[in-house]
Each structure stands twice: as C-alpha cells, then as structure tokens.
C-alpha cells in the first residue's frame, strides 16, 4: 500500500533511461524557469502596478516589479462608475448573452445535422461549410450590417459572429458518436427529438459542450475588431477590449482626467494614471483566470479536435 502511494507521488524514471547529467539537468531547469518567467513576469508586473501608489510607480520609473506601496484606489475609482466600470458590465453582458445564443444555435444545428438522412442534411452541411472557406470580407459585411441598422447597436457585436461552423462540425462529430441504439430505443419509447437531445445527447457530451462554450465565451470576451468596425464612435457603449485599446494601448486620456499625465483624485489621494490603465488590463484578465481551471482538463481534447478532427 505504501509503495503504491509512494510511486504515485513520485513517478519513476523508466529503467531504460539513463540518469541525466547534472549539466543537462541544470540547463533544463533553468530554461523552464526562464520560460515561466517570460510568461508570468509581465502579467505579475501589470497586476502589481495596478495596485501601486503613484510614489511606488515613480520609484520604479514606470512598471512596478518590486512593491513599494500598495493601494486599491484605482479599483475604487473604477467601482465608482465611469467608463471602465460600465465597460466591464457591458463586456460581461455581451459575453453571457452571446455565449448562450451561440450555444443554443450550435447545439440545435449540430444535433439536426447529426441525424444522418434527415431532410436536406447533406445540402445544409455544404451550405454551412462553404462559409468556412470563403466570405464576403469586411466591407460588404459592414455595409450589410449597417443596412440592417446595426451600426452602433449591440446586436452587431453578437449576431454576425454568433455561429461558428467549425464548432458545429466538431459538436456534430461528437453527437454522431453517441451510441445510436440508445437513441433508437428512446425513439421507440416515443421520445421526441427535443427530449432525446435534452435527456440523452446533451448529458452524454458534457465535455465537448464545456469546451465549445469556453471557446465562444473567450471569443466574445476578446473580440475587439468588430467593436472598432460597428461601434467606433460611441465610447459610452464600449466594451472592455475597446476601452483597453483606446485608453491603454493607444494611450488616449481617460474622459474627465485631463491629459493622461495627470491622475484623478479620490479624497485627497492622487490615482496614478498608469495604475488605472493596468487595472483595466488586470480586469480583462481576471474573468479568463476564473473560468480557466474549470475547463482546463478538457483542453487536450479541445486542441486535438482543432488540429486533427476526431
């Protein structure tokens, strides 16, 4: 019993493999450490700067790596409302509504197309797949959405990208692999297609549903260009990515804060503009960190699907 737990805790090197030389071992550990630092250090510094006082930022001469004074004033300012707080809520709402809509549409289409021999099944599949290879491009899409009255409207940020044919096909492949005798026997017992989808198909494909929902959600959360295209002027309506682009990447000054060199004040304390900018970046990362662990275990499956198609 003890040997088993011990082995599980410390997996053994296969007998045929020689022990690596200390030099190799050190080089390997060092390169892994460097790789981790390259990824983590910038993210850490962004988060730390968002919690730093103006004095601390001045000591560091910009981005903070070693804390000298911490404050949550940047977040307090955001919580008081204004452009960032509003953008955060808008982004969350678009992601929630968009993901829900995309999932409903995708699941329905995938289930419909997974019933081989259903009406027009091959034609519809081709009809959908053609859009994966060819599309009208940005300009006709812009004119079509504008003609439908979508300019500066929230639905223009959701509907045009609501369906991913790729996701439909991936999900359809999963649905087709579900044991057909289970579905057949349900049908003989008089279950409708809706009931089969809800009671059999969906419960047996939780993993793929989770992964695809994550992909859609990340897609909506991260989308930026469609905001630039369909909602370029009305900054009051902007989601977080566009706020980040304008006020951080492009360095526009926050509304009401004068030039970007002058901070805003809470009580008598000055808010460093840099910490406010980094708070925007941090707030954009946080929701991703939040969902990440829940879906991470399905990644391998998800990536493999993306690369090879199961």
């Amino acid at each position, binding site marked *: 019993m003890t040997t088993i737990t011990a082995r599980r805790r410390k*997996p053994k090197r*296969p007998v*045929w*493999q020689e022990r*690596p030389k200390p030099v190799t071992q050190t080089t*390997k550990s060092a*390169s*892994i450490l460097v*790789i*981790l630092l390259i*990824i983590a*250090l*910038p993210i850490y*510094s*962004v988060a730390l700067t968002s919690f730093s006082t103006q004095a601390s930022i001045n000591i*560091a*001469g*910009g*981005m903070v790596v070693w804390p000298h004074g911490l404050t949550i004033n940047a977040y307090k300012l955001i919580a008081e409302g204004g452009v960032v707080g509003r953008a955060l809520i808008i982004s969350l709402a678009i992601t929630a509504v968009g993901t829900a809509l995309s999932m*409903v549409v995708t699941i*329905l*289409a995938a289930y*419909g*197309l997974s019933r081989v021999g259903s009406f027009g099944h091959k034609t*519809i599949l081709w009809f959908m797949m053609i859009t994966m*290879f*060819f*599309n*009208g*491009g*940005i*300009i*006709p*899409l*812009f*004119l*079509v959405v504008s003609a439908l009255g979508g300019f500066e409207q929230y639905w223009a940020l959701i509907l*045009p990208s609501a*369906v991913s044919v790729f996701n*439909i096909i991936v999900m359809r492949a999963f649905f087709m692999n579900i044991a057909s005798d289970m579905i057949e026997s349900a049908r003989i017992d008089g279950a409708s297609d809706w009931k089969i989808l809800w009671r059999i198909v969906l419960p047996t494909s939780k993993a793929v549903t989770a992964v695809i929902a994550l992909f859609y959600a990340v897609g909506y959360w*991260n*989308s*930026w*260009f469609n905001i630039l295209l369909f909602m370029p002027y009305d900054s009051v309506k902007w989601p977080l*990515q566009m706020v*980040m682009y304008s006020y951080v*990447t492009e360095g526009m000054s926050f509304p009401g804060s004068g030039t970007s060199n002058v901070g805003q004040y809470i009580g008598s304390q000055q808010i460093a503009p840099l910490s406010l900018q*980094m708070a925007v*970046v941090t707030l954009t990362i946080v929701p*991703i960190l939040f969902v*990440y*662990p829940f879906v*991470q275990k399905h*990644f*391998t499956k998800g*990536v*493999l699907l993306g*690369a*090879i*198609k199961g």
Partner: protein
Amino acid sequence: MTLPAGALLLVFGYTPMLGLVMAFQNYDLYDGFLHSPWAGFSNFQELFTDPGFWQAFRNTLELFSVQLVLSFPVPIILALLLDGILSRRLRAVIQSVVTLPHFFSMVMVVTIFNQVLGGSGLLDTFLRSHGVTNPPEIMTSPALFKFLVSGQIIWKESGWGMIVYLAALAAISPSLYEAAAVDGASWWQRTRRITLPGLQPIMVLLLILNLGYALTFGFEQMLIQLQAVGPGAAQVLSTFSYENGIVEGNYSYGAAAGLFLGVTSVILILSANKVAHLLGEDGLYRSRK
C-alpha cells in the same frame, strides 16, 4: 433545428458574398448594391498598379514567413522539454502557465508587450538605470517589426501549440524506446530516430494548414500596431482592404482588395488540403467518407 444557424449564416455569411458585386461597381452609399454604376474591372486595374497594394503584399509574405520560421519550432521544443519532466504536478503547473496567453486577446498581448518592451516599459527602464542611454525602440521600429510580431505570436500561442505535440508524444509506444535503449541508442539517437519521426505527421499537417492562411495572416495584430510602426512595415493585405474600404470610405476599392484576398485564400487553403491528402493526412476537411 438547423434553421437558426442557417438563417444567421444566410444573412451574415451569404448576403455579404452577394455584396461583393460592389467590387465591380463604383459603390455609392445612397445607391446601394442595386443602383450603383458599374465599373467593370477598373477597381482591379487600379489595385494591381497601386504601389501600396504591392507593399502590403510583400509585407504579408515577409511577416508571415519570418513568423512561421521563428515560431513553428517553439511548441515542439517546449513539448520535448515538458515531456522530460517526471513530476506530473510540476508538468501540470507549467502547462497551465504557458497555455494561459492563448486566451488573451491580441489587444491585451500588444498592451502587455508595450509595458515590457515599449518606451518607459520594464526593459527600457532597466536598461536606462544600467547606463544605456538610448535603448532600442522595439515597439515602433519598422526594421524590428517582423521579430516583434514573431515574438508576440510565440508568447501567445506556443503553449497552446505544445498541447498537440504532447499528445503526439504520449502516443509513441514506450516499447520503441525500450528496444532502442537495449540496443545501446543514446538520447540523441532515440530523439532523432523515434521521437521526431513520431511527431512528423502532425508537424507536416500543422505546417500545411498554416500555409493555407498565409495571406489573411495577422489582421488584428497588424491593425493594432499599424499606427505605431507605420504602413511601410505593418500594412498587410487584410489591413489594406480595411483601411481603403472603411477608413477612407472607398468601399468598392476596399472590396476589390478583399475579393482578391478571399479568392487567393480559397485557392491556397484548397491546395494546402490537397497536398495534405496527397501526403496521406486528413486536411481541414476529409474528401473521402
């Protein structure tokens, strides 16, 4: 049940395709697709004699190839490195750290790069405080832009790309290694004769699929940095179409560039898949079955 998806694709996928007739018109906002005057191929004639277009064409090819050469091996090296770690927990930790940036938007990646490599970023202040008076302006240099683009892609996507290779590594039968070791094969011989051939199919597949998207490469990434770096280095075909069509309001001209891009991309993707099939791989789609 396919109706909602079909309707969305009809409106936002197929209607814009019909709208591409505007590439052969002098499109006017008030006349619309139906009543704008026809222009024949004049938009395309203008396009193919436009130095800006050829500049964008060259930039696209240059940025894409440099990026491909530099970023393609990184996930493989990462996978080999990670595969050699015995502790499962350590592997899991490393894997979750390196895959994280895949879920960041391009705006976020550029912003983070700005804070590290840009003026008064981490590197800049570090160099200045260590006596370097004129640190390189990495984020705005046209000459360095191809390497910056590659660096951003490597930072963002290497960890994600690694997962595929890790799965491929796990699929190689350990008995091969065992037999090789019994025969006295060294680490390098095992890597060269067993590991790399085991990874080869997936490497070929990913390379070919990558090539299929060469011309539409990097739209958001370039658009975000277009102003900072300038069109001489950062204008690619897709941003060229957008800048001319939407920003300049020259709709027909932009659509003509877009149509050129769409048609050449379809040809590229289909031929890439053909090559994949010829090599015995499943491409983006399967022709059989």
